[in-house]
């Protein structure tokens, strides 16, 4: 093929039809707080593990809402469950249980 020096990037559009909403429903049942997040980023700012790794509860929640749960799982692997994010969350989300619940729901049956 002739190279023109440019190419089309694969679409970064998220196809919600292809994502499995069933797991998200399970997650909501386990920890309804996931719906409360307003993505302020307080959790990420205070995160102990976040000093060393890209651990971020805020981004993980966004990724899951967009159906990209593998990215969310990778993001939470470094979490130490220290609970600082729970203390600072202005929406009073039970982040520790949310992280455990995300792992529980999405790690099983990949």
């Amino acid at each position, binding site marked *: 093929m002739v190279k023109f020096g440019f190419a089309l990037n694969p679409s970064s559009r998220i196809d919600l039809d292809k994502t499995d909403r069933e797991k998200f429903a399970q997650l909501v049942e386990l920890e309804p707080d996931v719906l409360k997040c307003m993505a302020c980023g307080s959790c990420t700012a205070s995160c102990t593990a976040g000093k*060393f790794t890209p651990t971020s509860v805020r981004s993980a929640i966004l990724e899951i809402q967009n159906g990209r749960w593998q990215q969310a799982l990778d993001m939470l692997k470094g979490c130490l469950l*220290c609970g600082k994010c729970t203390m600072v969350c202005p929406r009073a989300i039970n982040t520790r249980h949310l992280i455990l619940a995300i792992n529980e729901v999405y*790690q099983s049956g990949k």
Partner: protein
Amino acid sequence: MRERILGGYDDFVLPFMTGMAFILIYLFIGLIRIFRHMPAQDRTRFFKSLLSPSIMLKNAKDIVNDCLLHVKIFKRNILLGYMHASIALGWFMLIVIGHIEVALYVPQRNGILYYPVFFRYFVKQEGALTLKGSFFFFLMDFFLLIVLSGIGLAIYKRFRSRALGMRRTTRPCLADRIALACLWSIFPLRLLAESFTAGIAGGSFLTKPMHWLFSNFLSNDLHILPTWWAYSIALGVFFLALPFSRYMHIPTEAFLIMLRNAGIKASHPRKGFAEAEIYSCSSCGLCIDACPMNVNKRNLKYSSVYMIRFLRRRNEKKTKAIADKCLMCGKCVAVCPVGVESCNLKRAHRATRYNTLQYNYSYLGNGSHPAHAHADTQDTPDILYFAGCMTHLTPSIIKSMEEIFKLSGSKYVFADKDGGVCCGRPLLLAGKEDAAREVIARNSQLIQTSGCSKVVLSCPICLKVLKEEYKLQGIELLHHTQFINSLIKEGKIKVKDGGESLVYHNPCELGRGCGIYKEPQEILQQVGELRKGEYEGKESICCGGSLGSLTLSYEERGKITQGSLNALTGCNPHKIITACPLCLKTFAEKSPVPVMDIAQIVKENIYTNTYETYSL
């Protein structure tokens, strides 16, 4: 005294023997099950402990104190203690004296299980009563009277538990009710049976007058056999219902004490050591009143006693709900008369679900550490200050501590100045044990190689895990309350009375967790007027912010915080003082009066050089 019934047998012993055989077989199988499910090293540990004289002595002491005298319950409430001690000790003495009587008078019947129980039926008094005989008869009647008084109290307690110091008790299940009815009837029936037989076999101050009383309007001899039958049936049914009821703690508790003294801990929520704990739970319900979640009479179903009940019934769903909800404040363990460590059971239960979740802590290996920079040099400070995650959310504590270090002239290195890693306790509490071990191993290495001989911590959560799991050699671990107290005692800092009234909130992890009660009190007495809250020392209640609970929502936590604050502010203090950053942050949000850490109030009331020059 000689045998009246030839052959030493009557059909009425059959119900008793059936029950007895059943319970002995059940206990034997249970014992084998517990040993089989225990990890091999725990098993050898247990058998070794049986040979050690010091542990043997401790076993004997604990069994007498806990199973017979019920010292722990006496300390809580005298009537409640008497109720338990009278039934346990009285019954035990009836059995012992029964055996002595058999050995003395009818030695040919030694070793027959039912003989001492129905002794009075089988023997006949001949000639005048000897002094020895009347002594034993007196003892038998005396202990029967003691047991009967205990049963009387128990019946009274069933209807008015508050009189015996219990606000709320557990709801008994069917087997409990059956066993309870039998337990209540065993001893009155024994009294009746022995009274009717007193004409033949003799008796003492209780049975003789009863016999005389009955002989006035009942033809005694016809009532002998039916009452002995009833007594035997009550015993038999009690033994048959025993394994399914709360009274299983009677045979199991002694075994649990021996296991505990051997140093064994629960490694599985249902099997092995846990099984011994579950069956030792007497369902007394002391933990219901103790649980901080039960403030305002809500969440009653989340008490430890119900968790153990559901574990016993293998109700996985309900066990899970309680295990995840618990604050792990440890108050139920502190008040438990049997000493069931229910928090460990909950942790083990969480581990069955969360331990397998994936994690990746490889980044911990790369973290550079300020303490490390000092490791090779000569001027390594003695003191390593470890603030901990939570203290970084309350920088006022760190600032106060830095000031105190400076004013006292202590050389220190601030381990997690730029935000360190977690201590691993939150992971342990969540049941991610393998993950926690990795963090603990990494941190231990860092602290051990730092060259410091003392670690001062501001967070009791970290202190507890450092004390219990880190196994640091030659390093002294101090909470900042201990450190400040020693500074004051050595005269390195001087504090003045600020003239304010203070109330001290005992953090769960510092008090019950690490056993530190004295030092904070000593400091606070010097910086202000220390008042007493509603719950003091071992009985203090959680602030509601505990990391132990996984599923407790913010609203539910708020109620606990409010309840705890109400208990603290009852004495109208100017300030609430605590010693844990998590308590500080939780209280500060809702408290009507200012909340401070102990380090802050010390810093406020410290004599500094500048202060002295100004005042001069």
